[in-house]
């Protein structure tokens, strides 16, 4: 044996992959993990523990690894806390150790290990309390800097992630002997099968063991099974895919790592995919996890699980050391000795805690039945172990690697994701799946506590056959190969009593002493113990530590493990990158973007855009030479007041309401009367929630006896539509009403200003009279324009000017805008954006989202009388509650700054002159504020206590956040044309 690489294994020796760890170059082969490659290169020290910064090597060969965490890759792709045991080796892989300074071999924070007596479980709850201010200033910053494991780069993740959805009859989780057997059974029967496994090579423990299946090695049989499954169209094989959670109704989350084994993902391809798998039946074949035995200083690099040693030797052809000892309490651990010896690795001793243990007869190995390992020694790695024999004799044995086996725990995690509880099996000394599994799930193989290979194959087949039967299919006869079916003898041993520190949770540095302290301080329930000691809270989620700790607590309390209970396993099964949970929804793609029909036109004109929910709307249209946004907005506002302006208002919701009972329906969903609205007329409507507060407002037009078009505010288009469908389907299913949204179907443009009629007359086709007499304020009509284009014209006004809104099929909105601009050039036509729209409506005193914030009543807006008591409309009854009708209630008022040079900010609160800025003096607040170019003063709308009775008085608008304190006169909210003459002109 040269170096640590052995013969055989499932690595491709024809190719060599160079890689770097902490800057040093090494090489491995395809099929290696980073951990196997490091071990093959003689690297045992791979990380430091979280609290004491103890040197650590690999403990396991799988995703349960607590110790060997590295930062994989560098720069923006740096991926902290990556388990070397599952990181697939690739050409040029770069890994760095974590949580150490200045280097892994010499870590200054290792001083914590010397301070360990002071850092016992929960010590921080008992100190750092004096002086009070020192926690944030002194203690905590030190703790925060020291804490954490790896570091994120701080740069944006450059890779893409994807999501997808899969459907199947049977989801098989885990491709070990049970899973392969199950998938073969179901696949051959023609069922839609998904077989997912977290490993990049399917086969599970078959790849790690030396067993024969029939005439073949286990790994060969697995490869053959996988090949057959791959040939079946109805089977989807998903290697590198971890099923992370079992959710309701047969939905499973799974993460496929499609490109983590490549230096960078191919162009356009994601790094990982989050699959949501919906399945009729699920078979959990997730295998089992070996557990360690706690003894003093059991955390030295070189000490690993016996099963992991076999995996490294058999699958990756790596010797764990030159002189290996084993410490076991069961037969399974002895297989490691046999396999290592067969590979030519020297096994120096077998310490078996069972006094009756049989001698496996490994040449050169001392067999010590009834003995215990009570300590270890070695700097940065194992040199010797200390053994106490059954007779009490203590001595040292040279060993640079120690394999430990305390038995195996079935991987029941997913059986608990819907809060099912596993049950204790005394014979196995392990928790096995309970009866309350997630719906449609069954468990087979080692995950069900069936530990022999034959048993796994058989139970996988049988469980698949049962699932097929449930689905109405018949299962083919089994063709199971011959396989070992040996019972495993085990005598539970959780920890070796003694003085030193014996680790349970390796990463978080929780020792047997910590459990004892938790018990002493009455943190005895499993949850209290975990939370107090932090056991099981590390990145390995306690996969190797929970049960031993539980067993020790059971010993201390004198209860059985079954009585002590277990904690519930929660998703995810293993940690999942946040990137994949977000998928494509990031950056600009976080949410869809909605564009108005004139968006491209506005963009070409240099408009500035603003988000309005998902919509982008033109905020204002700066002209060359304008240096400040307000200069632009003032110009746009004045153009509307003096000439004519154009604004795309497509974003307002539009709901088409038809049916014989349409009028009755509209009358019930609005608080004010609609039953008698004439055809060809529009009315402003107040919509209440059933609790009597304002839900929305808008105008609704009656196009025909049985046809209304309702508009909603932009933000409420969806909720109002939902509300109407609720009323239609659930409240009044007997009414003849049909609803459909037409928001996107029509481009709608506000044409506002004294010259608006003149402009519109230039595009309206002959035959449609829109004169003031023929088409008065609040009229509506279906007309044609521009030579026959269908349009809807509404004479409504948000600005207070003579104004219209014209709607055309959305594809023509862009062209109509251009046409109106062209036809109105001589009229001074001006496009305006939401900013000017806001100023215009504040000047007119129209409420919008700032006022209709879900907390206001019609009464607050001065519209209380509009709520009809002659009919049963939604919200009317509860709008009459006393608290909503107080004499000193809020009223919408206008405010005008006394000093035109002062500033007035929305959100400011109102106080009397001379009053202290305390809540008791709070009179209300400013809802909307602007500079009024028309009035040449800062103005605002506000809710003011008893405001209607205070016209002409002066109060202060105070913004304590900016220090503004502005004297304002209380005025009508209708700053312009309170009589409404302009809009009727």
């Amino acid at each position, binding site marked *: 044996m040269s170096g640590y690489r052995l013969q055989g294994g499932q690595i491709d020796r024809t190719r060599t992959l160079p890689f770097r760890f902490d800057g040093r170059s090494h090489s491995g082969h395809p099929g290696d993990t980073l951990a196997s490659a490091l071990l093959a290169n003689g690297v045992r020290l791979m990380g430091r523990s979280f609290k004491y910064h103890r040197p650590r090597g690999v403990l396991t060969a799988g995703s349960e690894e607590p110790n060997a965490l590295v930062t994989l890759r560098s720069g923006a792709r740096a991926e902290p806390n990556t388990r070397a045991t599952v990181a697939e080796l690739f050409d040029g892989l770069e890994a760095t150790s974590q949580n150490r300074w200045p280097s892994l071999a010499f870590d200054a924070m290792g001083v914590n290990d010397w301070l360990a007596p002071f850092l016992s479980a929960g010590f921080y709850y008992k100190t750092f309390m004096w002086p009070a201010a020192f926690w944030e200033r002194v203690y905590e910053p030190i703790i925060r800097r020291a804490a954490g494991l790896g570091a994120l780069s701080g740069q944006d993740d450059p890779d893409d992630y994807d999501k997808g*959805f899969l459907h199947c009859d049977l989801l098989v989780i885990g491709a070990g002997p049970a899973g392969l057997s199950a998938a073969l059974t179901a696949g051959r029967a023609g069922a839609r099968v998904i077989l997912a496994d977290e490993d990049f090579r399917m086969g599970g423990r078959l790849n790690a063991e030396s067993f024969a299946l029939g005439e073949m090695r286990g790994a060969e049989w697995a490869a053959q099974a996988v090949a057959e499954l791959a040939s079946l169209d109805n089977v989807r094989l998903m290697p590198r895919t971890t099923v992370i959670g079992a*959710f*309701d*109704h*047969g*939905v499973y989350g799974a993460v496929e790592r499609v490109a983590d084994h490549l230096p960078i993902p191919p162009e356009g391809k994601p790094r990982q995919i989050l699959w*949501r798998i*919906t399945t009729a039946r699920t078979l959990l074949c997730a295998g089992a996890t070996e557990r360690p035995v706690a003894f003093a200083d059991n955390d030295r690099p070189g000490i690993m699980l016996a099963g992991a040693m076999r995996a490294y030797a058999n699958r990756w052809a790596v010797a764990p050391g030159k002189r290996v000892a084993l410490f076991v309490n069961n037969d399974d651990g002895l297989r490691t000795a046999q396999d290592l010896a067969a590979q030519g690795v020297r096994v120096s001793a077998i310490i078996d805690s069972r006094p009756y243990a049989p001698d496996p007869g490994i040449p050169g190995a001392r067999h010590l039945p009834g003995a215990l390992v009570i300590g270890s020694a070695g700097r940065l790695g194992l040199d010797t172990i200390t053994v106490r024999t059954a007779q009490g004799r203590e001595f040292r044995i040279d060993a640079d690697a120690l394999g430990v086996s305390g038995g195996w725990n079935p991987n029941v995690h997913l059986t608990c994701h*819907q809060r099912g509880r596993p049950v204790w099996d005394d014979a196995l000394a392990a928790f096995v799946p309970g009866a309350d599994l997630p*719906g449609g799930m069954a468990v087979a193989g080692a995950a069900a506590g069936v530990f022999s290979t034959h048993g796994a194959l058989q139970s996988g087949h049988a469980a698949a056959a049962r699932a097929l039967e449930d689905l109405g299919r018949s299962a083919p006869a089994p063709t199971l190969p011959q396989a070992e079916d040996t019972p495993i003898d085990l005598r539970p041993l959780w920890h070796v009593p003694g003085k030193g520190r014996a680790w349970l949770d390796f990463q978080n540095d929780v020792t047997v002493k910590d459990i004892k302290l938790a018990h002493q301080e009455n943190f005895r329930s499993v949850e209290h113990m975990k939370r107090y000691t932090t056991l099981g809270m590390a990145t390995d989620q306690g996969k190797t530590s929970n049960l031993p700790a539980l067993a020790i607590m059971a010993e201390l309390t004198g209860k059985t493990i079954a009585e002590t209970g277990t904690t519930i396993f929660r998703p995810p099964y293993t940690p999942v990158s946040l990137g994949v949970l977000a998928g494509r929804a990031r950056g600009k793609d976080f949410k869809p973007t909605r564009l108005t029909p004139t968006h491209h036109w506005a963009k070409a004109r240099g408009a500035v855009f603003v988000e309005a929910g998902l919509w982008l709307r033109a905020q204002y249209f700066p002209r060359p030479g304008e240096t400040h946004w307000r200069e632009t907005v003032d110009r746009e506002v004045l153009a509307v007041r003096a000439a004519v302006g154009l604004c795309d208002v497509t974003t307002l919701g539009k709901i088409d309401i038809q049916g014989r*009972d349409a009028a*009755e329906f509209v009358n019930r969903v609005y608080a004010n009367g609609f039953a008698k609205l004439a055809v060809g007329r529009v009315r402003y409507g107040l919509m209440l929630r*059933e*609790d009597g507060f304002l839900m929305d407002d808008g105008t609704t037009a009656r196009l025909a006896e049985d046809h209304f078009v309702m508009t909603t505010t932009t933000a409420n288009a*969806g909720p109002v539509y*939902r509300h109407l*469908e*609720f009323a239609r*389907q*659930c*409240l*009044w*299913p*007997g*009414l003849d009403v049909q609803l459909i949204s037409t928001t996107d179907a029509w481009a709608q443009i506000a044409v506002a200003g004294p010259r608006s009629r003149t402009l519109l007359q230039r595009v309206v086709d002959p035959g449609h009279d829109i004169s003031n007499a023929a088409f008065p304020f609040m009229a509506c009509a279906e007309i044609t324009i521009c030579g026959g284009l269908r349009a809807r014209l509404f004479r409504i006004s948000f600005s207070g000017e003579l104004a219209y809104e014209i709607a055309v099929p959305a594809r023509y909105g862009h062209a109509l805008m251009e046409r109106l601009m062209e036809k109105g050039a001589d009229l001074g036509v001006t496009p305006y954006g939401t900013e000017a729209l806001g100023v215009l409506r504040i000047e007119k005193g129209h409420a919008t989202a700032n006022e209709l914030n879900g907390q206001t009543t019609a009464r607050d807006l001065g519209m209380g009388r509009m709520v009809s008591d002659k*009919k*049963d*409309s939604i919200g*009317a*009854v*509860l709008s*009459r*509650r006393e608290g909503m009708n107080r004499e000193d209630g809020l009223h919408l008022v206008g405010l005008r700054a006394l000093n035109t040079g002062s500033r007035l900010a929305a959100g400011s609160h109102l106080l009397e002159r001379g009053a202290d800025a305390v809540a008791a003096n709070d009179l209300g607040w400013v809802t909307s504020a602007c500079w009024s170019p028309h009035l040449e003063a800062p103005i605002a709308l506000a809710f003011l206590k008893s405001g209607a009775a205070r016209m002409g008085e002066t109060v202060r608008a105070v913004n304590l956040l900016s220090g503004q304190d502005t004297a304002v006169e209380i005025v009508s909210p209708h700053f312009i044309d309170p009589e409404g003459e302009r809009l009727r002109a």
Partner: protein
Amino acid sequence: MIINHPLLGPRDAQEFTYLGDATLIDRPDGMADAAPEAFHDYLHLRDNPAGTHRELWYHEGGDRSWLVVTRDTRTHEITRVDLARDVALQRGRGA
């Protein structure tokens, strides 16, 4: 979650919007003398059972049907799904 739509078969619950207890179908008469108390009870008070719950879901990302879903709030198991319109008619709601 998967909701077995009575017309469309199993659909992802993500296509739906939840409202609450199906008793919201039983809107009182707003013109009755006892309306204030009846509306307070109707809108605000809930059995909120730990167990079988009949509740309203809206197929917003689908056919815009309101459904009455019978679901166990302890296990999330769904045992029945009806069109809310049918339920409302059965409960005597009409025009």
